[in-house]
């Protein structure tokens, strides 16, 4: 199976529980910039996070925060040009993927790390049947024959609870509803039994009732397979339901990382605080929503010091001068704010 790339790992599929040390997937000080006609946009400015087997890391951020670009870099599907990796590492089982040959990376894709995208309709090929697109992987990567591949593909469709999987095998993507397409894409990405699944806004395009179905399905499959999952989203509600840990991104940096309960109970960064305060909650009808004033920074011209300082209600002179590093502020939590200690210790 995946023995080529995980040769140093203990029994594959055991969830990595017996692995001596090291993370399953680790992003280390990653830097990416987009070189465009109008200038250089520094999209990712030193992102560090990791995910272990069986764990869900939510990467939370607004548009332009760099959360999707990080995922694309991990998968090796960053558009170059305009995107260029200018520094850092992405390690999978300790091996730096950014320094691998294209062939080596290709082998990891699908079997090691797989990804599902927000918009299933544009992620699926409209001129091939859904069944063919899933079966193709078994033929190409596992060397199975047509009939066997088809059987496995139908099994996959069954696993993601597509009713009448056999009959649906020959349907084209446009014949599926939005929720079913998302299921088909999940089936496709899980076909080769990946160790890490990156889900980039998997339910943003879906209705709430369908969203609940898909999130349940993902959680169930993750539990069964002990996959590591990176859930990229802007939805604080979804995150609260499924994440174990959360990394909050702003202007291409991680500004806070914490356990899900700690983060909601006591955010340690003013940006996280602002985000949590600005969601209208179903269970609280207030007068005015507290907002984060201003706009996210222009990535071609990130303000000096802390990138959040122009919008921050707590900003002090030091914030305009020094970039706050992401520092440990408690057990398993970190914040990139000069005043993180005070935020954590407040009552």
């Amino acid at each position: 199976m995946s023995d080529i790339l995980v040769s140093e790992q203990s029994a594959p599929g055991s969830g990595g529980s017996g692995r001596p040390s090291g993370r399953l997937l680790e992003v280390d000080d990653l830097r990416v910039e987009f070189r465009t006609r109008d200038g250089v946009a520094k999209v990712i400015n030193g992102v560090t996070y990791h995910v272990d087997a069986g764990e869900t890391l939510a990467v939370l951020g607004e548009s332009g925060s760099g959360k999707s670009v990080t995922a694309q870099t991990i998968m090796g599907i960053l558009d170059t040009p305009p995107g260029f990796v200018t520094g850092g590492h992405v390690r999978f089982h300790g091996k730096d993927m950014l320094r691998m040959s294209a062939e080596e990376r290709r082998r990891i894709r699908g079997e090691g790390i797989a990804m599902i995208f927000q918009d299933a309709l544009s992620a699926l090929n409209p001129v091939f049947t859904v069944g063919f697109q899933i079966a193709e992987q078994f033929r190409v990567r596992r060397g199975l024959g047509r009939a066997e591949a088809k059987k496995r593909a139908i099994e996959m469709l069954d696993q993601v609870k597509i009713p009448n999987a056999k009959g649906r095998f020959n349907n084209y993507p446009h014949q599926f509803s939005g929720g079913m397409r998302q299921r088909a894409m999940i089936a496709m990405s899980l076909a080769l039994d990946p160790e890490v699944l990156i889900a980039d806004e998997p339910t943003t395009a879906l209705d709430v009732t369908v969203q609940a179905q898909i999130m349940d399905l993902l959680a169930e499959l993750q539990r069964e397979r002990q996959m590591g999952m990176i859930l990229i989203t802007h939805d604080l509600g979804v995150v609260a339901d499924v994440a174990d840990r959360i990394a909050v991104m702003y202007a291409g940096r991680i500004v806070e990382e914490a356990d899900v309960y700690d983060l909601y109970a006591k955010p340690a960064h003013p940006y996280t605080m602002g985000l949590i305060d600005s969601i209208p909650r179903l269970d609280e009808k207030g007068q005015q929503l507290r907002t984060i004033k201003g706009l996210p920074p222009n990535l071609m011209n990130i303000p000096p010091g802390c990138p959040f300082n122009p919008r921050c209600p707590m900003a002090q002179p030091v914030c305009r001068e020094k970039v706050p590093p992401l520092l440990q502020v408690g057990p398993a939590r970190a914040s990139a704010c000069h005043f993180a200690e005070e935020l954590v210790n407040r009552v």
Partner: protein
Amino acid sequence: MSENILEVRDLVKHYPVTQGVVFKKTVGQVKAVDGVSFGLRAGETLGVVGESGCGKSTLARVLMNLEKPTAGSVVYKGQDISKLSGGALRRLRRQIQLVMQDPYTSLNPRMTVGDLIGEPFEIHPEVAPRGSRRAKVRELLDLVGLNPEHINRYPHQFSGGQRQRIGIARALALRPEVIVCDEPVSALDVSIQAQVMNLLEKLQSELGLSYIFIAHDLSVVRHLSDRVAVMYLGKIVEIGTEDEIYERPTHPYTQALLSAVPVPDPTQRNNKTIIRLTGDVPSPISPPSGCRFRTRCWKAQEVCAEQVPLLEIRRDSDHPSACHFAERREIVATHEV
């Protein structure tokens, strides 16, 4: 606050489904809106929620008379909008304006902000004489929280939230009484969304506007609305005050919808029961007989297939609910923190 400024009665909008190129024949109807009635009171916000395909955007288009209804009427202060045309319609349009969802495609990229916001004055010159238009536009920019100095900029120089403010300024230009907002914040980030929602509230209290606020996000709708209508497959299934819908929903669909909304509080993870609906919304071309929700409903009985449940106050419901078995059920995640 009690007078209905807008009355919608039995509104129906069907789109024909055709086959063939030369000899087109109609083979079916997409029943996008199928018998919707409600009233909008002066100064209130009526929220309309529902999932994609339930007909909420079609409703907005028909309310604005951008589409002629197949049947039914939209009465604004005693005048049926759907029967008007020409000058009379144009005059009436001044009173009802629309804010659209996508601030990226709803603004012409070749027009400056001044032209975009001033365009309504070209069509309705009586509102602002030519000489005073620039000044009016500056006032509007200021009103929606944009810098009046930016009057000569183009849409691409603004962020999504700012563009939505431009859209709102344009809708306000003619001093309307009713604004139909079709998913005005769904394309925006959380932090920006909150800014725009606060702006909408501020404008309402300052200018005495009435809103019809269409959205799929139940928390956003609750935050802004006085009353809420829940739509499913072209029909309103339940309507009531914000409290009645969110605290005491009686229609199974509303209950399921509310239970599925993720609560941004991890400590509630295990305290809530999500009602899991199976399957997808049926096609509006051939909706199920009787109650349209019955194919996904856990309470469905024979009567549901035979009789269309009317939207009326029922025994166990203090507000209109279109379910034969309407009853309260404690499902929404607890409200005490």
